[in-house]
């Protein structure tokens, strides 16, 4: 049976090395390029006509816009409009990474911790930089929740600091672990079918079972792919909210 981890292997397509640093163009980079080209071409093509009554492509682009705009309005408020380009880009990058990974023989670039960690630490840095820029040292009041009695503060403040620092870790691990686990599960069930078909006889008939179950799992995996992109974007919104308003 094929190794279920094999699909996550990064292989160089154009080997390249500069000053001892390996910067080969890999299959991961290839699928990232596809995602960038796809989103750019789609959004420019869809919005070229700017019709009052949108055609199908424009309607889809507007739906995507409205979805992210609504998410920002609900979670950050009207002041969050300035973060729209950031959240929209993050959402599209993660969504396309998850969705393109569902194509057969493709590569899921969000299934690598370095990709998700880079995104998550980028958001973490933005929250820190904008927070200190806007609020100065008042930003530290983030660690003191309002309405907490004085004698509880020595306990609450370390917990708040910990939960603040752990954010980029959980944000990145959640996405990459979901992608890894989902794709391994699909491969393992596909492997059951292959093994049963290879055994022949009665087992050939029984092998249809895992195959049918795999079809259900693929539907579930599409839900997870969308849901994880949504969760990634919404948690970024919640973290960015701290830079907009701080309870004094």
């Amino acid at each position, binding site marked *: 049976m094929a190794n279920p981890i094999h699909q996550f292997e990064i292989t160089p397509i154009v080997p390249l090395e500069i000053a001892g640093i390996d910067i080969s163009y890999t299959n991961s980079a290839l699928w990232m390029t596809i995602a960038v080209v796809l989103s750019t071409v789609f959004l420019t093509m869809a919005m070229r006509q700017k019709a009052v009554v949108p055609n199908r492509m424009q309607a889809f682009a507007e739906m995507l816009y409205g979805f992210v705009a609504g998410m920002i309005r609900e979670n950050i408020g009207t002041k969050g409009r300035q973060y729209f380009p950031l959240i929209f880009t993050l959402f599209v990058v993660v969504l396309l990474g998850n969705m393109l990974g569902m194509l057969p023989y493709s590569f899921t670039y969000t299934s690598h911790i370095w990709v998700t960690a880079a995104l998550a630490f980028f958001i973490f840095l933005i929250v820190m930089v904008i927070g200190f820029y806007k609020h100065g040292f008042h930003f530290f009041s983030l660690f003191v929740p309002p309405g907490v009695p004085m004698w509880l503060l020595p306990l609450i403040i370390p917990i708040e600091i910990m939960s603040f620092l752990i954010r980029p870790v959980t944000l990145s*691990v959640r996405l990459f672990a*979901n992608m890894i686990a989902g794709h391994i599960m699909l491969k393992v069930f596909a492997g059951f079918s292959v093994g049963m078909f290879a055994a022949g006889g009665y087992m050939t008939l029984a092998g249809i079972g895992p195959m049918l179950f795999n079809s259900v799992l693929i539907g579930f995996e599409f839900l997870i792919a969308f849901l994880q992109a949504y*969760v990634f974007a919404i948690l970024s919104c919640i973290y960015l909210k701290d830079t907009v308003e701080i309870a004094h």
Partner: protein
Amino acid sequence: MELEAVKLLAGAIALLPLIGVGIGLGMIFASYNEAVGRNPNAAELLDKKYFLAFALTEALAIFALLISLYLVFVG
């Protein structure tokens, strides 16, 4: 015990958080269904919160699964 047996056992123990995740997911589904049953108009409002809670809870199970896979296949 043999090393291989200990590895498998550790992988199994690492999956114990699934008990809590199972209970948690059950509570999320139950309260969502109950809330929508009592007030069907609130379904649209609750949908997003429900999906967020579902994804956050499920992520814990995935963390445990990842650690288990690591213990069995890599460690």
